C-alpha cells in the first residue's frame, strides 16, 4: 500500500500517479482507477507514453558522457580525505532493467491502454447504488469504493478463488485524492472531523484486501489540507510505504540557491518491511525531484559547492540550516563553514 502525500498544487503527485498506472499498462497488469475529481477515462487518456529503451538510453547516456569527460581523474588537493568516497551519482547510470521509462510530453496511444482490462470508479456516477456490505460507520463513498474493489477482486480471481484460471495477473489500484472533500469526508475541513475513523477504517480494510490478493495500490492524499495531524500519524502506521512530495512552488525555498536545480523534495517517511526483520534502506534519505520537459526524475540531493565569497552571513546561516538536514558527505563541508564563522 503506497501512500503519497500530495504537494500543494497537486502537480507532481498526479505525475507519480500516472506513472504507476502507465507502468501497469506496459506490464500488462489490470487496472482499477478511482477518483472523485475527474473521470477515470480522462485520467487514462493523459498517461505518458512509454519510451523505447534505445531512445532513453541514448539521451541519458549523452548527458552522463558529457559530465564524465570533464572531470576525468582530478585528484583532490585540499579535501583529499574525500578522495576515497565513491563518486556521487545523482541519477542511476546503470540501467538495470527494472520498470520502464516514459515520455511525459507525449500521451499514451489509445490502443495501448485499451489492450489491458481496466475498471473505473467515479464517485459521482456511483451514488445511486446502495452498498451491500456492513459499512461499519464508514463514510458511504469509501464503503462503495471498497465494495467495488472487493467485487473486482473476487470476480476476476485476483484472490486465487478461481482455481481454473491459469494466468494469474496483478491488479494495480490507483485512488486519487482520498480524504478530500469530494469524497464526502470532512477530514480536510476541520480539526475535529465528525467521523475521524472513516479514513483509517477504509485503509485497514483496503490493506486486508491487498494482502489477500495479488494487487498493489497507490493512494494520493492532500496531506497539507488535513488539519488533524493525529490522523496522518495513524494513516502512516497503516500503510506500507509513505512518500511525501514537497514542491517548491510558492514557498520560500524556490529562491534558495541550494535548491535551484530542483523542483521539489521527496520525503520517504516509511518503507515496507515485509516478510523479513529488516528493510532495504538506501544510503541516503535526501531525495529531490525535477521535472524536465520529457522526464520526471528523482535524484539524490547534493549541495552545489559554496564558491562565492561575498555571500552574506544570513544566507550562509540558511544554507547551513538546510544542510543540517542532509546526511551525505557534501553536507559536512557546508556545516564546517558555519563553525568557522564566529
Amino acid at each position, binding site marked *: 500500500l503506497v501512500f503519497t502525500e500530495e504537494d500543494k498544487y497537486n502537480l507532481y503527485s498526479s505525475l507519480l500517479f500516472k506513472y504507476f498506472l502507465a507502468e501497469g499498462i506496459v506490464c500488462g497488469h489490470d487496472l482499477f482507477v478511482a477518483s472523485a475529481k475527474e473521470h477515470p477515462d480522462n485520467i487514462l487518456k493523459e498517461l505518458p507514453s512509454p519510451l523505447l529503451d534505445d531512445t532513453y538510453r541514448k539521451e541519458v547516456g549523452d548527458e552522463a558522457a558529457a559530465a564524465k569527460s570533464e572531470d576525468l581523474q582530478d585528484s583532490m588537493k585540499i579535501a583529499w580525505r574525500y578522495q576515497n568516497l565513491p563518486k556521487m551519482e545523482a541519477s542511476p547510470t546503470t540501467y538495470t532493467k527494472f520498470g520502464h521509462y516514459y515520455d511525459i510530453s507525449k500521451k499514451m496511444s489509445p490502443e495501448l491502454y485499451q489492450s489491458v482490462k481496466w475498471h473505473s470508479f467515479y464517485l459521482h456516477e456511483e451514488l445511486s447504488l446502495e452498498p451491500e*456490505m456492513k459499512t*461499519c460507520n464508514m463514510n458511504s463513498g469509501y464503503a462503495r469504493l471498497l465494495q467495488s474493489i472487493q467485487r473486482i477482486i473476487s470476480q476476476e480471481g485476483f484472490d486465487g478463488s478461481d482455481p481454473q484460471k491459469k494466468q494469474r495477473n496483478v491488479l494495480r489500484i490507483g485512488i486519487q485524492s482520498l480524504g478530500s472533500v469530494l469524497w464526502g469526508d470532512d477530514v480536510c475541513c476541520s480539526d475535529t472531523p465528525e467521523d475521524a475513523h472513516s479514513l483509517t477504517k477504509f485503509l485497514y480494510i483496503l490493506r*486486508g484486501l491487498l494482502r489477500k490478493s495479488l494487487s498493489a495500490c497507490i493512494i494520493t492524499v492532500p496531506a497539507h489540507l488535513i488539519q488533524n495531524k*493525529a490522523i496522518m500519524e*495513524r494513516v502512516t*502506521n497503516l500503510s506500507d510505504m509513505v512518500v511525501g512530495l514537497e514542491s517548491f512552488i510558492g514557498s520560500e525555498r524556490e529562491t534558495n540557491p541550494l535548491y535551484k536545480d530542483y523542483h521539489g523534495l521527496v520525503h520517504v517517511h516509511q518503507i515496507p*518491511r515485509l516478510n*523479513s*526483520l529488516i528493510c532495504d534502506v538506501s544510503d541516503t*534519505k535526501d531525495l529531490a525531484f525535477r521535472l524536465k520537459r520529457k522526464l520526471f526524475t528523482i535524484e539524490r540531493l547534493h549541495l552545489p559547492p559554496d564558491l562565492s565569497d561575498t555571500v552574506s552571513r544570513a544566507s550562509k546561516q540558511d544554507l547551513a540550516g538546510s544542510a543540517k538536514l542532509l546526511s551525505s558527505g557534501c553536507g559536512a563541508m557546508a556545516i564546517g563553514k558555519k563553525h568557522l564563522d564566529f
Partner: protein
Amino acid sequence: QGKFTLLRDSRTDGSFLVHHFLSFYLRAGCKVCFVALLQSFSHYNIVAQKLGVNLAAAKERGQLVFLEGLKSCLDLVFGEEEQPGQPSPLQFLSTSDLRALFDFVRLSLTPADGDSCTGPVLLVDDLSVLLSLGAAPVAVLDFIHYCRMSVCCQLKGNVVVLVHSNEDSEDEENELVVNSLCHHSDLILWAEGLATGFCKDVHGQIKIIKRQSLRQAAEQDLVQIYQYKIQDRNVTFFARGLSAAVL
C-alpha cells in the same frame, strides 16, 4: 510469570521485538494467543522461519492461536451474517466494543483438557491500530486491564503488547493509552530511532526499563540502554558508541 511487558517504539519500527517474543515463547512451550492486527500470517511465518520456529506447525498442534486481523475484518465486512452465538472478535469495527475481542482472548488461553503447554501468553501487535479503528482510548485501556486480570492474575501467564508513540506526537488518544500503560507495566522495552538521524550501522537504541518501583516502594526503576543493529536473522546489541562500524 504474571508479567506485563510493554513494547514501545518511537521514530522506528519495533516489530523485531514482537518477532523475538513470539519465537521465544513458542520455543519455551507456552501457549500463545497472538492478536496480529497489522500484518498477515505469512509475514510472521516467514520471519519466524528465519528465527527457527514454524508457526504453521504450532498452529496445527494448538500451541498457537492466531487472530489475523486483516483477514477477519474482511470476513466481517464482506461476509454473510454471522451466527448470533459467535460474534466476530473484530466486532469493534462496527460497534466500538472490545468485549468480543477479550472473550476471544480468554477463550483461547483458558487451558482445555489434554493441554500440555505451560503458562499462557498474550501477544498483541499492535495496540495503536485499535484506536485507528474506532475504539475509544478508555475502551482500549479497559480491554488491557481485563486481559491482565485474566491472563496475568488468574492464569499466571504473561502479556506482551506493542504500541507506537512519538515524542512530539499530536495523537493525544494514543499518548494517553501509551502513558497509562507505561505506568502499569512491569517491563518496558523502548526502541527508538537515533536522535541524530538515520545511520546504516546502528538502527536504533533500545531502553530496557525494569519497573522495580512497582514491587517495592523505595526501589528505583532500573534503566539500561543499548544500541542495536538488525540483520537478516537476528539482532545484535551493543553498548552505546561501541558499534562494530566504529571499533
